[in-house]
């Protein structure tokens, strides 16, 4: 296996053509950016199939792709829990039940919804933590890309950072959110078409799904698990000791499937922003549902290559082996190693372009979410209110430049201090874990008050921190993994199990405290103010679809049935 790729002219041509189109889309949209709304919210005019693909594409960043492939190699098919149980139910819930409030409230962002529904402090807390988080996420994406290009192609780290930042800056500065969304759609198709040959060749070389199952049965038994541990989804999670991830079904369903998944898909402005940019209420509601259709099949594109990689590695005759990192495999290298193993020059350029595209769209997604929250929820609300719309358009564009500059700083920080990044991600996990409880109560219980929401959130975050401080995953070596409160009350079989339970504790605490504090405080929002924001005070919407089969409910049922069939097929 060649450690570094040698690219030919054809590979560079493919990359070049892609970048020309990316920049061209931004350029073509430039003359339509007349108001801050055009720039920051996409002018609410985009059809559902586009926002739907952008909805999942923004989550299909390269870190996600490489992480899922790594997880596929490390844990096998149970990684699909991050899709079938860990995304689809939440996407259905968002489309059917939550989108009417987001879209109908005319809020321009998720923090703004919190302002309308609760109060200023809840919005401020959410806006500031979200803004900081997006900048760091964008920086990490840039850092990971530059590192990958350095190791694979020998490109200069600083040059990679500079070029990727420039390209993202140009197309988001020119075309705003719409440009980011259009490019996400382009990237989505590029990833699918770029990775399909990889899955095809991988399966062909290993004897199809059946061949993969036989090979992985050996891997599983050699680790002391049942033969199906790498190729089944629900059977291995009956007990935490039956699967390499160390998770049990309750943690999977409640921690991942409910708290983490609903918290991410239903409250993270990064993805919700895509649905809010849709052209109509019906399109907004269909956005996550349309996105769910391809989402269910993405495991075959990103997890299966990881499974093939570990099967090949365990077979000494295959001529493929994952590199070592310390005393275990360097799982994060699965995708680039597999691309290098199977792809000749030509499609190799295509695969690498797809990978770069997803790094950049990961950045662009964060930047466009950041500039909206910065401009509307921080700048317009606290720093400089009541200026002309022209001024806010200008501020949005400046926030784009500023956001990218700061994320370049974050990328270098990630290079210098790896621990700082782990630490920050941990803090954000604490802040995000209880968020869904706040939204759930806010949208479906009109008695929830601003104080209840704010202090409920704080209590949830505190609970997450305390739980993390008192528990540890097995074999933890640093305090960043937990146990920093000194005494370890419980040891989880794995970090993943610990994460799921941290989320469960945070959610439950936030839920309970929000209810108690709401009952103890006065609801200062009037009935009129809450109309359109709370379920019981919002008139049922009549869907404007022409035919019955175009309604969100019908789509939701179809999506649900396919997800159930997939789960049973790979039970």
């Amino acid at each position: 296996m060649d450690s570094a790729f040698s690219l030919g002219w054809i590979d560079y041509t493919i990359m070049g053509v892609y970048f020309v189109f990316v920049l061209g889309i931004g350029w073509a949209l430039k003359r339509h950016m007349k108001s801050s709304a055009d720039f920051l919210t996409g002018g609410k005019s985009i059809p559902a199939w586009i926002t739907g693909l952008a909805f999942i594409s923004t989550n299909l960043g390269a870190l996600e792709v490489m992480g899922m492939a790594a997880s596929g190699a490390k844990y096998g098919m149970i990684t699909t829990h991050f899709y079938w149980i860990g995304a689809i139910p939440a996407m259905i819930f968002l489309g059917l039940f939550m989108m009417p409030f987001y879209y109908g409230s005319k809020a321009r962002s998720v923090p703004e919804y919190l302002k309308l529904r609760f109060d200023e402090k809840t919005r401020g807390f959410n806006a500031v933590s979200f803004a900081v988080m997006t900048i760091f996420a964008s920086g990490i994406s840039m850092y990971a890309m530059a590192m990958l290009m350095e190791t694979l192609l020998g490109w200069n780290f600083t040059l990679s950072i500079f070029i990727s930042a420039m390209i993202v800056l140009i197309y988001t500065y020119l075309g705003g959110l719409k440009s980011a969304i259009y490019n996400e759609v382009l990237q989505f198709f590029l990833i699918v078409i770029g990775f399909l040959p990889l899955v095809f060749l991988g399966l062909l070389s290993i004897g199809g799904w059946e061949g993969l199952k036989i090979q992985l049965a050996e891997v599983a038994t050699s680790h002391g698990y049942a033969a199906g541990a790498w190729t089944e989804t629900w059977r291995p999670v009956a007990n935490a000791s039956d699967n390499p991830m160390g998770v049990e079904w309750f943690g999977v369903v409640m921690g991942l499937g409910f708290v983490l998944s609903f918290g991410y898909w239903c409250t993270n402005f990064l993805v919700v922003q895509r649905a809010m940019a849709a052209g109509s209420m019906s399109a907004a509601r269909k956005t996550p549902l349309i996105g769910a259709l391809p989402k269910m099949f993405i495991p075959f594109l990103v997890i299966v290559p990881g499974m093939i990689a570990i099967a090949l590695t365990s077979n000494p005759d295959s001529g493929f082996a994952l590199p070592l990192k310390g005393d275990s495999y360097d799982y994060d290298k699965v995708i680039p190693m597999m691309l290098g193993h199977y792809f000749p020059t030509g499609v190799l350029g295509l695969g690498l372009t797809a990978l770069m595209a997803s790094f950049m769209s990961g950045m662009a997604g964060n930047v466009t979410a950041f500039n909206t929250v910065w401009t509307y929820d921080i700048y317009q609300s606290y720093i400089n209110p009541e200026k002309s719309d022209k001024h806010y358009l200008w501020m949005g564009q400046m926030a784009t430049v500023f956001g990218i500059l700061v994320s370049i700083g974050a990328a270098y920080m990630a290079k210098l201090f790896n621990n700082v990044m782990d630490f920050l991600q941990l803090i954000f996990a604490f802040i995000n874990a209880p968020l869904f409880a706040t939204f759930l109560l806010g949208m479906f219980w009109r008695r929830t008050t601003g104080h209840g929401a704010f202090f409920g959130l704080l209590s949830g975050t505190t609970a997450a921190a305390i739980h993390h401080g008192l528990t540890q995953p097995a074999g933890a070596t640093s305090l960043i993994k937990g146990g920093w409160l000194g005494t370890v009350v419980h040891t989880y079989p794995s970090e993943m199990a610990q994460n799921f339970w941290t989320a469960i504790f945070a959610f439950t605490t936030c839920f309970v405290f929000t209810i108690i504090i709401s009952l103890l405080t006065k609801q200062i929002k009037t009935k009129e103010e809450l109309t359109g924001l709370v379920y019981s005070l919002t008139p049922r919407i009549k869907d404007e679809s022409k035919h019955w089969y175009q309604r969100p409910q019908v789509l939701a049922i179809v999506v649900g049935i396919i997800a159930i069939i997939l789960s049973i097929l790979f039970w």
Partner: protein
Amino acid sequence: MEIDIRLPIGFMFSLLGLLLLIFGLTTEADPELYKRSLEINVNLWSGLLMLIFGGLMLFFGLRAKRSKTK
């Protein structure tokens, strides 16, 4: 909608597809190159797939454009 995203997607994939297809045809006689892809000319087939996809996108995009101008 000011620009129909199907058109740039269609153009890009047709162009890249054509490029890979031609590259695949010219390297057909190079067994060394396709050894790693199990003797399959993966450039040719990927190119063909992309060309078909790009063509479909262009077809629907242009059809929508025509019906709008009518």
